[in-house]
């Protein structure tokens, strides 16, 4: 596997400009001849499909939801970063670049991150022009707020529904292209395999979730905008349908999978209430702007009502440990601190897995109205789920799997190791290193879709001739048959256990051994347990109904099957990364006071996994990361 990152020459700030100039252009008459498949319709997929359609390409866009507007980007709450420096507080493209690199614990590519920071400015303009109703100041200009991991206010937001509004913006642009016929939208279609011919991606196989029909779609390039794999943990803040299948199938067809162990735990989720739970709900990190995180100083107080614990018996541990960032410490650090507090028996709420996020001071300082205006919908959501009123009693929060930084490896053009297969947004590994800063996911999805891929795809398309492959040809047929066989096996599975029960069990293993803290012993154990679970799955799975209909059991079984394989890969990656960095915390690698110890000497690289066949250990490749513009430093938020 050759990992040529294709980073352009020149000084960091000029790389993107140089690359855009040197990128090959597809002339307008030829664009019509190229057919592009976009899988996924979230911020990355929606914006890419819309923009490519606008440019004149023939686009087929697929999503498993019943409409492109429901992709899970919609659930992002807090905001989107943009280095506009509207607040005159010292922000700049370089500062956003630096914050993102540092926030990612120096495990991302400088050139990609800098391009992201550059594009952040255009994204805001684009979204405003689309009619995204960002929050405004009284003077009518855009408002900003601050976010974890940054000391400037650069986050643009639309109440607590920024992701929704940005997605609806991309969806409206997409809808405009669908109306012109330039983009054909295929809803309730799940990609089950990638068609690779002579090493090039030439199409996909989908299953129509409503009718069960399996079909070949051919194209000149395939864009995977299929999101993250957080659901390998069963309980996460991802939507129930989010899955790794498209990415994992591409991996099996030859795409390198980079850094699967880089998963992000979000510090402010609503704690687990019981065994029935199907997902975790995030409370926007922006709450940490006005909320103070604490647990009782003494474990004995953990069972008491918060109002009975006096001020001097409370431990505002983030403020204590990280005085300069305080409650706004980055996500991984905040999460781990919460886990530590709970491990010490100081956790609150049912099961003792929770910490308080207290708004009392802010309410006293700013008044309940201000707090309600800022976070009203979050407080309502909290009350609906927990039955508690956060204006009167501190919220209980606990970390949960939220985002996955790892993903398919891509070069500077966003192309995976399979030529013609591009990967955008959360599905790729490129911009967030080992930890993503708040309000950066939306930025990356839109940057990739609106401003990067439409330029860089030309570099590939100009090397091939349009027309794709014959959908009836051998390669397509073979791939289709293999998918039919796989689905057929599952439909005929008449064992005893539901796919959900396997998913739950896998989630428990993952959370226990590959969650917030990992160890060699635990990871080895996890790999064994996952393998056993997979064997059991292959023997004892129960699927009812048949394949030619809407069959949600069948859908889930396919996804869980891939999660089982993928979970093992994730553990394997975690096991080989002998350091602690960002969201990856190995218990063996920490300082005396529990801070993560990075190993730049041996691990300043992206680990890229190559599939070698079922039952074979995948091969680990390395893309070394070079840092020419930032000094590798111990990430300190003290």
């Amino acid at each position, binding site marked *: 596997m050759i990992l040529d990152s294709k980073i352009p020459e020149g000084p960091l700030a000029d790389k993107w400009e140089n690359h855009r100039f040197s990128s090959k252009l597809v002339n307008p008459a030829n664009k019509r001849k190229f057919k592009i498949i976009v899988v996924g319709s979230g911020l990355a997929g929606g914006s890419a499909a819309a923009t490519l359609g606008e440019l004149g390409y023939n686009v087929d866009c697929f999503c498993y939801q019943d409409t492109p507007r429901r992709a899970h980007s919609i659930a992002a709450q807090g905001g989107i970063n943009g280095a506009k420096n509207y607040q005159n507080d010292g922000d700049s493209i370089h500062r956003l670049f630096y914050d993102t690199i540092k926030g990612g614990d120096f495990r991302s590519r400088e050139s990609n991150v800098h391009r992201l920071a550059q594009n952040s400015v255009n994204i805001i303009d684009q979204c405003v022009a*689309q009619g995204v109703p960002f929050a405004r*100041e009284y003077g009518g200009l855009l408002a900003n707020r601050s976010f974890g991991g940054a000391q400037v206010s650069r986050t643009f937001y639309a109440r607590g529904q920024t992701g929704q509004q940005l997605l609806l913006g991309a969806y409206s642009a997409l809808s405009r292209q669908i109306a012109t016929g330039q983009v054909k939208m295929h809803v309730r279609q799940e990609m089950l395999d990638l068609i690779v011919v002579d090493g090039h991606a030439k199409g996909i196989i989908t299953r129509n979730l409503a009718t069960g029909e399996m079909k070949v779609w051919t194209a000149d390039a395939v864009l995977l905008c299929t999101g993250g794999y957080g659901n390998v943990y069963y309980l996460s803040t991802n939507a129930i349908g989010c899955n790794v299948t498209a990415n994992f199938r591409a991996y099996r067809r030859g795409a390198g999978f980079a850094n699967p162990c880089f998963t992000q735990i979000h510090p402010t989720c609503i704690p687990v209430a019981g065994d029935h739970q199907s997902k975790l709900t995030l409370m926007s990190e922006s709450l940490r702007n006005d909320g103070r995180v604490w647990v009782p100083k003494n474990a004995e107080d953990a069972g008491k009502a918060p109002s009975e614990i006096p001020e001097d018996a409370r431990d505002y541990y983030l403020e204590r440990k990280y005085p300069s960032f305080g409650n706004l410490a980055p996500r991984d650090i905040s999460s781990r601190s919460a886990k530590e507090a709970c491990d010490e028996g100081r956790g609150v709420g049912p099961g003792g897995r929770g910490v308080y996020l207290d708004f009392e001071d802010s309410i006293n300082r700013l008044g309940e109205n201000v707090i309600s205006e800022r976070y009203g919908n979050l407080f309502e959501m909290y009350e609906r789920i927990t039955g508690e009123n956060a204006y009167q009693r501190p919220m209980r929060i606990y970390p949960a799997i939220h985002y996955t930084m790892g993903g398919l490896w891509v070069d500077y053009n966003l192309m995976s190791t399979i030529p013609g297969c591009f990967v955008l947004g959360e599905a790729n590994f490129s911009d967030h290193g080992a930890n993503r800063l708040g309000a950066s996911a939306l930025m990356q999805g839109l940057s990739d879709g609106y401003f990067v891929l439409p330029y860089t795809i030309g570099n590939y398309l100009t090397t091939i001739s349009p027309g794709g492959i014959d959908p009836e040809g051998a390669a397509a047929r073979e791939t289709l048959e293999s998918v039919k066989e796989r689905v057929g096996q599952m439909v005929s599975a008449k064992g005893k256990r539901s796919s959900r029960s396997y998913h739950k069990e896998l989630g428990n293993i993952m959370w226990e051994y590959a969650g917030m803290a990992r160890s060699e012993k635990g990871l080895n154990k996890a790999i064994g347990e996952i393998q056993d679970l997979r064997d059991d799955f292959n023997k004892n799975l129960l699927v009812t109904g048949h394949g030619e*209909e809407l069959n949600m059991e069948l859908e889930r079984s396919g996804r869980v099957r891939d999660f089982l394989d993928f979970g093992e890969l994730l553990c394997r990656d975690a096991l080989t990364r002998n350091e602690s960095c960002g969201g990856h915390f190995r218990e063996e690698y920490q300082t005396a006071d529990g801070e993560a110890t990075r190993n730049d000497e041996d691990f300043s690289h992206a680990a890229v996994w190559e599939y070698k066949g079922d039952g074979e250990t995948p091969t680990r490749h390395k893309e070394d990361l070079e840092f020419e513009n930032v000094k590798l430093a111990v990430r300190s938020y003290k």
Partner: protein
Amino acid sequence: MKLFLKVWKQEGPEDEGHFESHVLDGVSEDSSFLEMLDQLNEQLLGEGKEPIAFDHDCREGICGTCSLNINGYAHGLENSTTTCQLHMRKFEDGDSITVEPFRAKAFPVVKDLVVNRSAFDKIIQAGGFITVRTGSAPDGNAMPVPKENADLAMDAAQCIGCGACVASCKNASAMLFTSAKAGHLNMLPQGQAEKDSRVLNMVAAMDEAGFGNCRNYGECSAACPKDISLDYIAKLNRDYAKAKIKKVFS
């Protein structure tokens, strides 16, 4: 909790459909309504029966995938709440609950409780956008928007497109959805250029899809999980009249 459920079962779009009764015991009051259905489905699987198909995805009240008519109410009786955010603590032990799909001609049933809401996409495709080429936007602060207008636009833009407005309307009218989408863009300076064609085209698409007519009951707004106000319907009525008059006299 023990619950007595009466759930709609329909094999496919052509099937007549019927209700089936189930008894489900051991439901936690911290469960969401959908988690309760998960539990029912696991029970059905255990009995070798086919689980009930229902739409759901984010389960945090924002994607708008979940639907369900619960005891006659779209998303259940709780105000400002989607089905996925409806928790079982709002029910009593021993309750009987009737679960049906959202019913409208424009939302044909796919299977069981799953309906096809693509008619909403058609409405958006007709004009629910601002025509702006990627990369052609002026600076974000080039056009100030009074905070009040931005807030009103946001109130409308919050619509999650779940279709509860249609399901709760006795006439299956999509006016609340259409008006919220058009209203959001019509309220912003960016949306002015296409305002007239937007309302004309979106209303035409809405009619085309087979939705009923608005009778100003307000059931839609009462059922809306995002509390979209009837004001947007009034605004759409106003904008449409203006656009139509301009068109006639132009």
